């Protein structure tokens, strides 16, 4: 069974509708993935809407002064945590294709007292940044949503400086695939 059961535009529309309609989930995801120390001072809006799948930031080698791209920033929890590590001499570019998510990330960064988080509207398959301008790309549960993953990964490579790092957490599946009824369920593309 091919995974390309839906057209690219259909997938984008499903993801856009599903994520655009989320408003205040549960803090359970944030509390499962991050330590209390990490969550200290992170605004409630980010905690209550965290949708990542793991704590990849523990493995991301983010240094003060770095430029970090958060691919699919959502409500901004990882952007805030990364921005604390880059410090004021660095910055986090928070990319999302949903204006609602960028507004949340902006609000969250403001409330956290960070002025080094820069929201950027765009798609991961066409990142609106110049070549070789980013030190580290982070992404949490986002690549699986892309209908053009090879293109999205090529874009990550393009914007990274040589020697820059990509640190990603994502859902993977094993060889035995899920039933077609699950693969074609609209919510399964966003979930």
């Amino acid at each position: 069974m091919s995974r390309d059961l839906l057209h690219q535009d259909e997938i984008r529309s499903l993801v856009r509708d599903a994520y655009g309609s989320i408003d205040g989930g549960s803090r359970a995801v944030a509390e499962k993935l991050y330590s209390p120390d990490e969550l200290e001072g992170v605004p409630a809006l980010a905690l209550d809407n965290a949708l990542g799948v793991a704590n990849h930031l523990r493995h991301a080698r983010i240094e003060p002064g770095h430029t970090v791209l958060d691919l699919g920033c959502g409500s901004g929890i990882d952007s805030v945590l990364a921005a604390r590590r880059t410090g004021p001499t660095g910055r986090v570019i928070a990319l999302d294709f949903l204006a609602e998510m960028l507004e949340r990330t902006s609000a969250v960064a403001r409330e956290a007292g960070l002025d080094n988080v820069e929201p950027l509207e765009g798609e991961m398959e066409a990142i609106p940044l110049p070549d070789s301008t980013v030190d580290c790309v982070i992404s949490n549960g986002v690549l699986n949503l892309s209908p053009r993953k090879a293109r999205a990964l090529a874009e990550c490579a393009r914007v990274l400086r040589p020697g820059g790092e990509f640190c990603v957490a994502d859902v993977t599946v094993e060889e035995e695939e899920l039933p077609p009824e699950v693969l074609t369920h609209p919510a399964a593309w966003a979930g």
Partner: protein
Amino acid sequence: MAGALTERDFVQKLERAGFVDIEVLERSTMGIDDCALYPLFTEELLATMRRLIPAERLGHVAVIAIIRATRA
């Protein structure tokens, strides 16, 4: 989840994109109870999964991988 790759495919795509030193740093199992934490998994989808996925696989629906790679 429906768009998720196998880990092998993910790593191959990273290689083709120009990444080197690709490391899978963590793997964790995602079961249906983990899926239920996310509002994107609707009750209808969760019910469909419970109905169609063999009971012995419900605790192991997917694997979360953390991967780090370097741009050559």
